[in-house]
């Protein structure tokens, strides 16, 4: 079993085999929310612009499972959302990424790389943890996806080499990508 055995749905509902990405370095992200962690969209685009010529792809999987569940509702979180126009990396069809209804790809990814905690130095980490503990304690248990913008790094052989939580910014993983290119 490898990442290349999975087939996912494009935005238009067509099947796309991940074996089409054989030999590339991939970053697989559950993007969905255009709120809260929105800066990550811009940072992901920067990574894509910087490395796509060297065989790097970002695969975004929108998911509504965390919609309406913004961490906190105070001034620390912006109270508006931005449409993700201008993103040129691939965005696939909306689908679930955690729980029973999760897409098989995400069940595989979370089994390969387990949850190792949030980076509590990230400005939103405390809010996120608090919101999860209060409202969705079950999300914190196990290795399932905790929130939007969980990132999985795949090497050129299809090996899942790293998992980065929402509290790790895309900019800070540039060095990890470079190592694989």
């Amino acid at each position, binding site marked *: 079993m490898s990442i290349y055995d999975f087939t996912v749905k494009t935005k238009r509902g067509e099947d796309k085999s991940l074996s089409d990405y054989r030999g590339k370095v991939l970053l697989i992200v559950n993007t969905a929310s255009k709120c809260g962690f929105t800066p990550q969209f811009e940072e992901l685009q920067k990574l894509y612009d910087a490395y796509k010529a060297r065989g790097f792809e970002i695969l975004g999987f929108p998911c509504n499972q965390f919609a309406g569940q913004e961490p906190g509702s105070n001034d620390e979180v912006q109270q508006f959302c*931005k*449409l993700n*126009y201008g993103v040129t990396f691939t965005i696939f069809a909306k689908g679930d990424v955690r729980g029973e209804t999760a897409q098989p790809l995400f069940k595989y990814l979370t089994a390969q790389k387990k949850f190792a905690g949030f980076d509590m130095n990230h400005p939103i980490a405390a809010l996120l943890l608090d919101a999860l503990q209060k409202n969705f304690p079950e999300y914190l248990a196990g290795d399932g996806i905790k929130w939007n913008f969980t990132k999985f790094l795949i090497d050129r052989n299809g090996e899942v080499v790293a998992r980065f939580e929402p509290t790790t910014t895309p900019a800070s993983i540039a060095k990890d990508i470079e190592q694989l290119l």
Partner: protein
Amino acid sequence: MVKVYSFDGCPWCDKVKKYLTARGVEYEVRDIEENADFAAECEKISGDLTVPVTTIDGKNFVLGFDKRKIDELLATA
């Protein structure tokens, strides 16, 4: 008529809609993800594709879920 520019999956948009409903204010939802014309209108009003944008006349608007500002906007109607 109050117009709320929004898109599906935007929690702040939902909050604005719920707040308007609770106040008994009628409003029209304009989805900027589904409709390119609405997206262009939204960008013209606020200068960006950020939502929720609440407006009555297409000139004065409130960006985000800000009850006080929404109350002020409604008071001008």
